[in-house]
């Protein structure tokens, strides 16, 4: 019965046109970046490595599929939460807005099962968005630019990773990004449980992300104490897989904080949903 419920939830998600906005946006943005780097990538690389080239000669293919994928991830991963919230923020509130929530809870399944099925379906959507991003960013990157060592430019440091040591890092990074985006999914899903229209949870989720990002960007001493516990600090934990050596302890810490956020949000949402009066 639960699997039928899950199947129905997945069908609901993938039958809505809005679910494909994310895929279309990712494809469009990724294609634009590929095109731009294909056309002007060399001059872009020359500009960013100008400081390095004052002292050193850099040999080898810097502009390769791995770098292109890294650039796309760096640019997009902050915006992907919006695309996730667009769907997961509608999971419960969409039913309320359509007046189908009461019908749904009348089915011979527990509210908890409905809740879990919806969240799993939302997480599945998150995973498909990330897999699609991996295909368009990394797959197409390798196809058009070839493989090669990955040069990561930080403002005061350069890390160069050998080509044969990169694939697992991307898989791990996408895995970490999945957990990070599941937090966004859990927040929007929680807000969705409190609302009967979709716009509220979607906008609220974005507002929360923007607020915490601003707090993190301000980097003021008064915010330093909460900074390590904010989920936005750990949304970009994926990038740590591209450090050498990989800071596993910090990654584990980030993942734990993100998982605590997921558990916290789902706990609040489940507590509310299993007790709330459903009037629509």
């Amino acid at each position, binding site marked *: 019965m639960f699997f039928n419920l899950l199947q129905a939830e997945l069908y609901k998600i993938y039958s809505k046109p809005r679910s494909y906005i994310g895929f279309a946006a990712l494809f469009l943005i990724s294609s634009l970046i590929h095109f731009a780097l294909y056309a002007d990538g060399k001059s872009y690389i020359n500009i960013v490595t100008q400081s390095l080239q004052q002292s*050193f000669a850099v040999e080898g293919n810097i502009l390769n599929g791995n770098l292109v994928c890294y650039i796309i991830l760096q640019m997009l991963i902050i915006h992907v939460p919006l695309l996730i919230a667009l769907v997961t923020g509608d999971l419960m509130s969409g039913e309320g807005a359509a007046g189908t929530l009461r019908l749904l809870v009348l089915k011979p399944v527990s509210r908890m099962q409905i809740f879990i099925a919806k969240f799993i379906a939302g997480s599945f959507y998150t995973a498909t968005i990330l897999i699609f991003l991996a295909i368009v960013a990394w797959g197409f990157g390798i196809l058009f630019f070839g493989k090669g060592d990955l040069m990561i*430019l*930080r*403002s005061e*440091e*350069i890390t*160069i990773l050998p*080509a044969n040591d990169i694939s697992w890092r991307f898989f791990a990074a996408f895995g970490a990004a999945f957990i990070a985006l599941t937090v966004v999914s859990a927040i929007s899903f929680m807000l969705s449980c409190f609302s009967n229209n979709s716009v509220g949870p979607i906008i609220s989720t974005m507002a929360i992300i923007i607020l915490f990002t601003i707090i993190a960007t301000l980097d003021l001493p008064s915010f*330093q104490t909460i900074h390590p516990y904010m989920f936005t600090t750990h949304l970009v934990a994926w990038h740590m897989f591209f450090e050498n050596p990989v800071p596993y302890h910090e990654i584990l810490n980030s993942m734990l904080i993100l998982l605590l956020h997921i558990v916290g949000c789902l706990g609040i949402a489940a507590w509310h949903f299993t007790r709330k009066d459903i009037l629509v």
Partner: protein
Amino acid sequence: MLCCCATLLLQNAHGQDGATLLKSAEKKFNAVKNYKAEVNIKTDVSFIKIVPVNAFIYYKQPDKMHIESKGIAILPKQGPDFLFATLLNSENFIAVDMGTQLYNNIILKIIKLLPKSDTSDLVLGTVWIDASTLLIYKTQVTTKSRGTVDLEFTYGKYANYLLPDKVVFEMDVNKFKIPKAIAADYESSAQKQKNAKQAKRGKVTITYKTYILNNGIDDSVFK
């Protein structure tokens, strides 16, 4: 007895003047028309994290040099070709003898190189050369554009051709900084301050594993 031997050795080392020694070294090196060398490049610079890279270095007389690497390799601007292109081109500078120095139990002749032209990039060069074998063991080159570069050479089975088994470059490095907008930075300012200390000297070690000498290299390799 020891004093007499040392005096004799020093006199022998002083036997040729600096310019003649470098000319002889240049002549000896000219026997190498071209080579392909398999190398390992190890970069030790505070702001660059890179594992050692294997590459091929192609050289063809008089000054063609090409580095082929599957991965990304970082080399000093004054690369392996710099010594032979600049220091062994005796037309460009005046060589001044500065005496001798004992280095790893070898008496080396110290030669200072002063540029003839005011517009030359070379400000001052110093070469430590073994007068008997013509092997250059150390150089220090100061240029207007790239600061000071120290090179140390270790020789092995290709010493007869003046080709080293290992070259260690130590050079001045500019502080590395790129705009935050294009950098992959996610650290807080406190973390960045920890990383901010950048050493001003960098070190690159090139270990030559094999040489293929005078086997002919097509010009297209250098394009």
